[in-house]
């Protein structure tokens, strides 16, 4: 189990995440909802342990082991990975080399082909392509999803996997998430899309860096649609919550 215990993260003296308590279990899907600027991507970076995203308070535990101070690679070796909202592009790196991490990830050509097919990319057309600027945003996202499939992670944070991908492909994302969960991965989905969030087992709603609500995805999505979509004070939760946290 991956647990965030009273995690705070500050940047330039400003608290971006406050008192985050979350637990993630293998084989389950979690949806993180929140308006822009709520701290969703920051949460993803804190979980992954990216440079500059060490919690200022609190602990991150993986199966009871305190990994708060672990660097990215150590976390990845323990089975945590992250798909960026806008994945990086590389110069001259072939897709096959990227997916196999230059041979470090021992996967067969068959597995690669299957992963590419799952994300809607024709292996014959893409295997030798470069993971560079010539791939469209949607193609790059699909490559990243294929990479996640091949990594077989224990925990994966997908930061808005649906952004930049056409609406017709939402089923593909569902299918990938389902397969990951079936194979025992825990999927943490950061999304704005209701139909994707509703597939989760559990949801968290972030607002200005705090967990405003958590519970069944249907309940959270309904609250989000009723309150956050039309919010006249986005990322300004009630004073009561804010003051309670400061205390």
């Amino acid at each position, binding site marked *: 189990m991956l647990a965030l215990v009273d995690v705070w993260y500050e940047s330039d003296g400003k608290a971006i995440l406050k008192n985050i308590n979350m637990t993630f279990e293998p084989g389950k899907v979690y949806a993180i909802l929140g308006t822009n600027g709520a701290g969703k991507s920051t949460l993803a970076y804190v979980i992954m342990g990216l*440079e500059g995203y060490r919690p200022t308070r609190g602990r991150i535990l993986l199966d009871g082991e305190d990994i708060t101070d672990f660097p990215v*690679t150590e976390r990845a070796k323990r089975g945590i990975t992250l798909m*960026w909202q806008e994945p*990086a592009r590389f110069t001259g790196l*072939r897709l096959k080399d990227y997916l196999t*991490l230059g041979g470090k990830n021992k996967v067969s050509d068959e597995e690669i082909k299957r992963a590419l097919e799952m994300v809607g990319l024709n292996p014959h057309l893409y295997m030798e392509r470069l993971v560079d600027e010539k791939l469209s945003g949607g193609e790059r996202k699909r490559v990243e999803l294929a990479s996640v499939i091949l990594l077989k992670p224990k925990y994966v944070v997908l930061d808005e996997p649906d952004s930049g991908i056409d609406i017709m492909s939402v089923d593909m994302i569902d299918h990938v998430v389902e397969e990951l969960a079936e194979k025992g991965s825990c999927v943490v989905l950061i999304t704005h899309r209701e139909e994707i969030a509703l597939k989760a087992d559990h949801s968290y709603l972030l607002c200005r860096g705090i967990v405003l609500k958590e519970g069944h995805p249907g309940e959270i999505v309904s609250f989000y649609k009723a309150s956050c979509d039309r919010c006249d004070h986005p990322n300004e939760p009630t004073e009561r919550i804010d003051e309670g946290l400061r205390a």
Partner: protein
Amino acid sequence: MIVKDFEREFEALARAYERAGGDVSKFLDKRIASVIISGDRVIGLNGVEGVVLKPSKIESGVQVDMEIGAGVVLEHPVHVCTGFLERKGYQRVIFNITLRRNAKAIFTAHCVFPWAEEFTHDALMNVRLEEGAWMEYHDEHMHSETGSINLITRSIADVGMGAFFRNTFTLVKTRVGKLKVFMEASLKEKAIAELFTKVKATKDDDVEVRETIKLDGEGARGLAKTNAVALDRAKVSVVNEMYGNSPNTRGHVECVEIAKGEGVEVSALPILIVKNDLSELTHEASIGRVNVKQLQTLMAKGLTEEEATELIIKGILT
């Protein structure tokens, strides 16, 4: 074919050539045009139909005039091997290459200096492409690990109407020493040129790259690109230069340089000069440390920082 009395020299060169990634069998295949130079001698030569190769001796080196006849399309690349098997010396090589109208040829060149310590290699390539011709010249270098080689390689290309010219220079497997790569192409109407240099410099290697494309003819297009990695205390200085001299010309210059090491120094200078208001030139450069997002992306998949850096560099130099 191999000149009599030079078989043993060819064998020594062949071993170094294969280590450089070359395929020696190509030099023994009569269907493939080839030139083998060792020091100041041509020790192997094979012409095929439509290809005229004329070697001559010059001071401290060799000149080879190569001509591909009008309409001749070579099925196999012309193989060129320039070697120097001594430890010290000076070698001058001049290639004058002409492709007549609508001819098409690809050149694969390997320069191998496996044991050179105090050595200067001075190469000049003059290229003339007539209307509709197509030429690619891929030059890969394999030096010794002493880092004491001086290498000056210059190419000057006159690319005719509707012709295509691609010139690549690669030195990524061994030490560089002091390297100057100067590529220049002048393009006539609707001609296309791509100049591309890939270099990995380590220790106290010193590299200077200058790629210049003059878009003189209407509708001409050019790409000048350099990918370089500088490690340790190496210095790499790059100038990519493009001139938009005629209407409807388009050019792009691009430079990617990674610097890693104390005392390392890299620079990139794009020069774009437009002399016609219907010309469009663009540039793109990324120099300095390995991109953090790229690094973290790979590290989030389990690679160490060193492994991630290696994979990123491999991509840049491939």
